[in-house]
């Protein structure tokens, strides 16, 4: 493995710090996480406000940037409610269980190269281990316990539903997240976060049919599919919009923290935002080159030494946070079945197939000693064709019901609960109906836009024209015929 600079820490550099350096780092990480949380909350409110043509908080402090601090202090002086039906010890401990792993996950995130703090040379990272990324995954898995126990211990309906949903959601998307980073380990050959950053230090030498050029070294560019799956999965993993079903205000009030108030509620809030920061930092570490300066800046030799990398790292983290907020400001919340279907039927198989592709290409190019261009030709293209065919078939199968209903609707408005016809409608572009109700993409039934008022029940007894238009009446299971003139 190549190390671009002597400042790049290796695994041997960890574990020998003097105790006061360790103490400084621990307190530093704690303070950074709390400050980033306070910043992220204001940042989110201001960005979302801009996206909604509002100004956002602008009263407390400079341009309102102390708003979240004021809110946090206010929360501390609110009444702490212990619901009568709550399971008291668990109710009491759940916020603690949610908060501690959130902090711990940040301990193996590399913030920068080796620097000197009061004369001591030390890496800008609390610690690292050969299994560094596993520590983060373990902590994010432990955080689920806090949420599930909070929902269960509240002794109330909405928190219980929110806790259950969040358990199912987080374990589902943890699979996708865990699978998406396998390809990174394949390329880096290590699970230690500092060495993964080191592995992204140098550009890849690519030779493509005679042309030699230095390819990008970020895994986001080398492994785009992994990066996309990771980005989607962590949004589900951190319960953020559009995957914020455990706290869907419109259905579950507040989800698992409905019954919580005061500082206990504040801890859940803190844990959620720290988790957001952690997955952003992990995205920067695994896919965006870690603390290393991005391309135009990396031309300057000093960019990757001293304390500068801290700036690049936090810029990457804030950029990732912005994407989180952007998603929240743009996308509506998914329905639960859509959400689970997407996780299990799209993300997981795609990640598995992608792992096989990456591993095959790595092994073939190593064993047969092929150039990158030849690998792309002999392995990449056939595999890509196979994947496309597979995805086409899978999406057709997954959308079968939607297609059926759409075809039915186009044929004259059959209610969704009617039994399916035996013969599937032919594939191909969806037919647009000119008279019946039109259904939008996505398969959710829309009431007929050219609304026809159903005839009065009393009219049924009157003789009806045999050539009347058929109007679906759905749940009543009978079809009513209508006079032509009504249509």
């Amino acid at each position, binding site marked *: 493995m190549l190390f671009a600079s002597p400042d790049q820490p290796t695994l041997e550099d*960890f*574990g020998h710090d003097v105790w006061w350096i*360790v103490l400084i780092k*621990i307190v530093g*990480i*704690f303070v950074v996480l709390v400050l980033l949380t306070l910043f992220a909350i204001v940042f989110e409110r201001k960005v979302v406000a801009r996206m909604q043509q509002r100004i956002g908080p602008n009263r407390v402090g400079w341009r309102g940037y102390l708003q979240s601090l004021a809110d946090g202090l206010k929360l*501390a002086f609110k*009444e702490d*409610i*212990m*619901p*009568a*039906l709550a399971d008291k010890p668990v109710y*009491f401990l759940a*916020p603690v269980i949610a908060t*501690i792993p959130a*902090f711990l996950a940040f*301990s*193996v995130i590399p913030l920068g190269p080796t620097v000197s703090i009061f004369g001591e040379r030390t890496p800008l990272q*609390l*610690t690292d281990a*050969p299994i560094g990324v*596993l520590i983060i995954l373990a902590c994010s898995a432990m955080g689920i316990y806090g949420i599930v126990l909070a929902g269960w211990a*509240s*002794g*109330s*309906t*909405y*928190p*219980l539903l929110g806790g259950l949903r969040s358990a*199912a959601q987080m*374990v*589902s998307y*943890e*699979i996708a997240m865990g*699978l998406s980073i*396998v*390809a990174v*380990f*394949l390329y880096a*050959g290590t*699970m230690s976060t500092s060495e993964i950053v080191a592995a992204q230090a140098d550009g890849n030498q690519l030779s493509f049919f005679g042309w030699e050029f230095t390819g990008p070294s970020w895994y986001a560019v080398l492994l785009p599919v992994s990066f996309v799956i990771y980005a989607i999965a962590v949004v589900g993993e951190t319960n953020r919009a559009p995957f914020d079903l455990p706290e869907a205000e419109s259905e579950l*009030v507040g989800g698992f923290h409905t*019954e919580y108030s*005061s*500082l*206990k509620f504040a*801890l859940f809030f803190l844990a959620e935002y720290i988790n957001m920061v952690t997955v952003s930092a992990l995205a920067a570490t695994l896919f965006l080159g870690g603390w290393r300066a991005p391309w135009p800046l990396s031309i300057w030799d000093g960019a990757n030494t001293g304390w500068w990398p801290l700036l690049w790292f936090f810029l990457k983290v804030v950029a990732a946070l912005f994407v989180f907020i952007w998603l929240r400001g743009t996308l509506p919340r998914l329905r*639960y*079945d859509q959400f*689970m*279907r997407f996780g*299990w039927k799209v993300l*997981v*198989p795609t990640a598995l197939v992608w*792992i096989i592709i990456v*591993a*095959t290409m790595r*092994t073939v190019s190593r*064993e047969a000693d092929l150039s990158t261009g030849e690998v792309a030709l002999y392995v990449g293209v056939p595999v890509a064709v196979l994947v496309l065919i597979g995805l086409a078939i899978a999406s057709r199968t997954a959308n079968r019901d939607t297609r059926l209903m759409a075809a039915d609707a186009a044929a004259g408005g059959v209610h969704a609960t009617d039994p399916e016809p035996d013969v599937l409608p032919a594939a191909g572009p969806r037919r647009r109906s000119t008279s019946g109700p039109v259904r939008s993409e996505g398969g959710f039934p829309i009431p007929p836009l050219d609304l026809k008022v159903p005839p009065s029940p009393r009219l049924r007894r009157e003789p009806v024209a045999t050539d009347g238009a058929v109007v679906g009446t759905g749940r009543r299971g009978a079809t009513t015929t209508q006079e032509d003139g009504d249509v």
Partner: protein
Amino acid sequence: MLSNYVPIVGLFALAAAFAIFSVTAAPYVGPRRYNRAKLAAYECGIEPVDQPLTGGRFPIKYYLTAMLFIVFDIEIVFLYPWAVHNEALGVFGLVEMVVFIVTVFIAYAYVWRRGGLEWD
């Protein structure tokens, strides 16, 4: 090598102290005014129904998701070491791993086909 993990214990202590201090201090810092309705379980304007102490019942789908999670999590447990040592294991490791992934994939396809991944 274990000395690498000592700082994590330190951070754990600080985070635990902070969290436990917060939850313990909360009842003393804030006001406390008794109100029966305030301590009742939240409900949208109707009388809340007591939860059974055993936690009540919830859909079997959640158990199914948990079982599927275990299957795939174990798959990930096997994938990580292989991914890290992919270079040393070479073609043999790749073939073994593809066979393993395909085996799990068959079970996955079965669950999919039987509607185990459907939510309503």
